[in-house]
Structure formats: C-alpha cells, structure tokens
C-alpha cells in the first residue's frame, strides 16, 4: 500500500471537482459513514431523459471518501438515473485504482451510496454489502 495515496488521489482530495450546491436540484441525498463520521452530500440536475446534466457535492472526511466522491462526480455526468442506480462498486475501485482494505471500504463507497440514494430517491444499500 505504499502507493496507496497516489498523486491523483491527493489532487482530488485537495482540489475536489464539482464542489458546491445547485439551486433547486432535481435529486439530492446525503449520508455519513458510521465508522468514522465522514459525510457526503450530492445534488443532481437531470434533463428530460433523466440524464445527469449537473452534479455538485459537499463533504468532509478522509482522502479516500472525498477523492472517490470527487472522481465519481466526473464519471457519472451524462449517465441516466437508472444507470447510476445500477453502478457496481467496481466503478469506484477502478477510479481509485489502488487496493482498498476491508476496513476502509465504507470510506471508498460512501460517495457511491449517496449518489445511488439520490438516483433512487431513498437510502441505498452499502455497495460493498450487495
């Protein structure tokens, strides 16, 4: 894990993309990682085909939770809400590109859980438990 914190992860941690809020978002969700209190809120604006046109997030927590959420906001632009609801955890793991220990998996999956919750309009299951 000496390459655990690669430069692009630190870059997304210190300069997260798509940070902020939307006026009157079409969908939004937020949640907290019970293990460590990391928190993420995601807001979405979609077009008539239910495709994500705009996405913003706010959050606080560790580099893994915040960088993975930041990367995810770039990944899902243009996807439909149904596609987001079906996103596998591998999408996040590929974005991060490094091994995540079981104890940190909830940190990595927090953003995806919140994003899916926004897409389906209720709290989604933890992606690492489904």
């Amino acid at each position, binding site marked *: 894990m000496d390459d655990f914190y690669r430069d692009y992860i630190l870059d997304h941690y210190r300069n997260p993309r798509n940070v902020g809020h939307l006026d009157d978002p079409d969908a939004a969700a937020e949640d907290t990682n019970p293990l*460590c209190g990391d928190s993420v809120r995601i807001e979405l604006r979609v077009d008539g085909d239910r495709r994500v046109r705009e996405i913003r997030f706010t959050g606080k927590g560790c580099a893994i939770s915040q960088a993975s959420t930041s990367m995810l906001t770039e990944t899902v632009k243009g996807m439909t809400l149904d596609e987001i609801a079906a996103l596998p955890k591998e999408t996040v793991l590929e974005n991060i590109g490094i091994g995540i220990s079981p104890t940190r998996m909830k*940190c990595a999956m927090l953003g995806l859980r919140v994003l899916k919750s926004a897409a389906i309009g209720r709290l989604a299951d933890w992606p690492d438990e489904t």
Partner: protein
Amino acid sequence: MSTHTAAASASTLAHVRDDFPILSTTTTRGKRLVYLDSAATSQKPRAVIDALSRFYEEYNANIHRGVYEIAARATDAYESARAAVAGFIGADSREIVFTRNATEAINLVAYSWGRSSLRPGDVILLSELEHHSNLVPWQRVAAERGAQLRFIPVDEHGELLLSDLDSLLDGVRLVAITHVSNTLGVMVPVRQIAERAHAAGAVVLVDGAQGAPHLPVDVRALDVDFYAFSGHKMLAPTGIGALYGKRALLEEMPPFLSGGDMIRTVSYRQTTYNEVPWKFEAGTDSVGDAIAFGEAVAYLRRLGMENVRAHERALTAYALERLDELVPRGLTIYGPRDPDRISGVLSFNLGDVHAHDVASILDTDGVCIRAGHHCTMPLMDKMGWTATARASFYIYNDESDIDALVASLRKAADIFKL
C-alpha cells in the same frame, strides 16, 4: 517524578514485553507489531491466556450450583477472582459485581439506582469529556425519569473548569464522571470532585475504564460511590468488567437483570433476591473470563501500579518530546501536553491529512493507532475536531515504539507532501 522512580520503573517493567506473545508477531507485510491502541483494548500476557485455557481444559463447570469437584473448584476460582479485583482497588469482595464491561456496569447503575432513585427535576452532573458509555445511559434514564443533564465544562486543553463546581452541584443527585479522558488522557481530580459532590448530597459514579488500568486506584481514598471498569483494557479478556459499589447502596438497589443465580427463593408469583453482589449477577456468568481477570490484576499488582504510572509518564514525556520534531511538518497535539496531567494517551492531527488516512499509512508500518471520534462525539464537536489520531501506551510499550510512530508519521507527511 524523581530519577529514582524512573530507574525503578525501568527495571521493573524492562522485560514485561516478553510476557505478551502477540508482541513478537509480525504483520502480513513483515513489520514488527507496534501496538499503540491500548486505550481501545490492551494486549494479554501469557499468564492471563494460560489462566483462561486452564479453566476450559481442567475445571470448566458452572458455578454456585454443582456439588462435584470441578464445580467447586470453578466456584472457588471465580470468587477468588472477585477478591483479587476487589483488592486491586481497595474494596471488599461483596462490593464487586462482575459485568461484561464498564458500559454494562454504568448501565447497571443507571437502570437500577437511576430508575428507582431519580425524581423529576433532579440533575445528573456529567463532564464534557465523557465517553458515550457514560453519557447515553444517563440521557435515557433522564428522559424516562424527567431528570436533567448538566455538564462540567472543559477548557481548550480538555481540562475540567472546576471554579464553578459548587454552583454546578446545585440540585444534583448524581455526579457521573470519567477518571481519565479516553480521547485526551486528561486525569480528572476525582477525589476533590467527590468530596464536594458529597457535601452537596450527591452520589458519585466514576467511569474508571481508563483509570483502573493505568493509575493506582483506592476507592476508599477516592471516596466514590460507584467505580466502573473493563477487564479487557487491563490485560484481561473481553467480556468481563466490574462495578464497585458501596455496600449500603448496592443493598438498597433493585436488581438490574433478573433470572437464575440472582435469586434466593422463587414461586410462580414472587421472588426474593440473593445477597449482594450476586443479586446483580443473573444467569451464568463469564466464569473463565472472570478468573482470567483475577490473574490480570494479580499481574498488575506484581508490577505495582505506581511503577505502571511512572513508566507511562516517562513514555508520555518521551513521546511529547519526539512528536515535537514533527510540528514543523504540521503536527498538532491536543490536550495539556504535560506528562504530569495526562495518562498515556495522546491525540493529534497531521496537517490537512484526515486521521483515518494517517492511521492507514501507519498501519503499513505495523503501527496500530486509533483514528476517529473515540466515542466522544460531543467533545469533538465542542473542540471543532472532525477526527483525531490517537496513540495510547501501556506497560509493554517502550521508546522504540515511539520511535516507530514518529518515523511512520514522517512517512505520512512525505506521502501527503507536507
């Protein structure tokens, strides 16, 4: 601390490390285990592990029931363990109730004493340092009984502000306070608080989960009414802890859990209860764990708790000195930063690196620390910390563990380009 005491503690505790089998293991990355999370749970010496195996291999039986030889032996060993635990804190055996842990001991008082004694409008005085285990039970009982919670405030270093204690004690029925902060290591002047609380007519409970393992404790000298502690933080197995209660108080309290073993006679409609402390020990107890707890306190008494404290004080002083080297790299240490005021716990953060990331990087070097809110979310909120990293020491740690911590923190600072 005099140099004489330092030398004495160094010689007494020099070979302690060899008694802990886990400390000679390595991680999957081949690193020596540098265990700095004893505030979460302590490691176990060979003597305790052997006591536990000996019970299951030689005389496992239920207690207080069987008439055969091994049942008698198990009962004797269980009650001897109670005497050992009582002696460790200067109590009588009849004043020690075995529980699962400090949390269960506090809940016992909350649900037995609290439910039967608290009246609407009564005040429970806590401190802002409290672990969730000495806060949430009181929130629940207060809501049920119409009582109120009040808090002794802390300063920016986490030390209690006691100048207004007498006015804070107005209308207080119970003071429930920690002996040592699990987040900052701050030692609370329990004796002084108990004296003033008693003068105000309040009952005093101390959460000793971080006190009993690290400091000499004499419940008579402290003059507290209840003292709750966990075995697993003081060399014993998980699943065993104890509640000390003054006998007169225990006598007048109703049972907590009910069922077998805590009774004297039972008819279909009515029950009379056993004497204390057995009145509070319903069902089959954690017999093997209790026996091993007795072995754990015997081990600590052989070392001498004054020596344990001196060792941890010296280690804390060394750690504060070494960690200072990392201040230019962005390290912030919380708490009083004075080894005479803290007990073997240091909380810190490294620049803008989240505590969980620090802990993950340290883990790759075999350095085990805790990261997060340490079950003190209200304190974290008050201080404005999202999370802290926490290193905590015990009898088996030495300067080489601190050196490993500092080296690994330096690596974390490098990775995060601080």
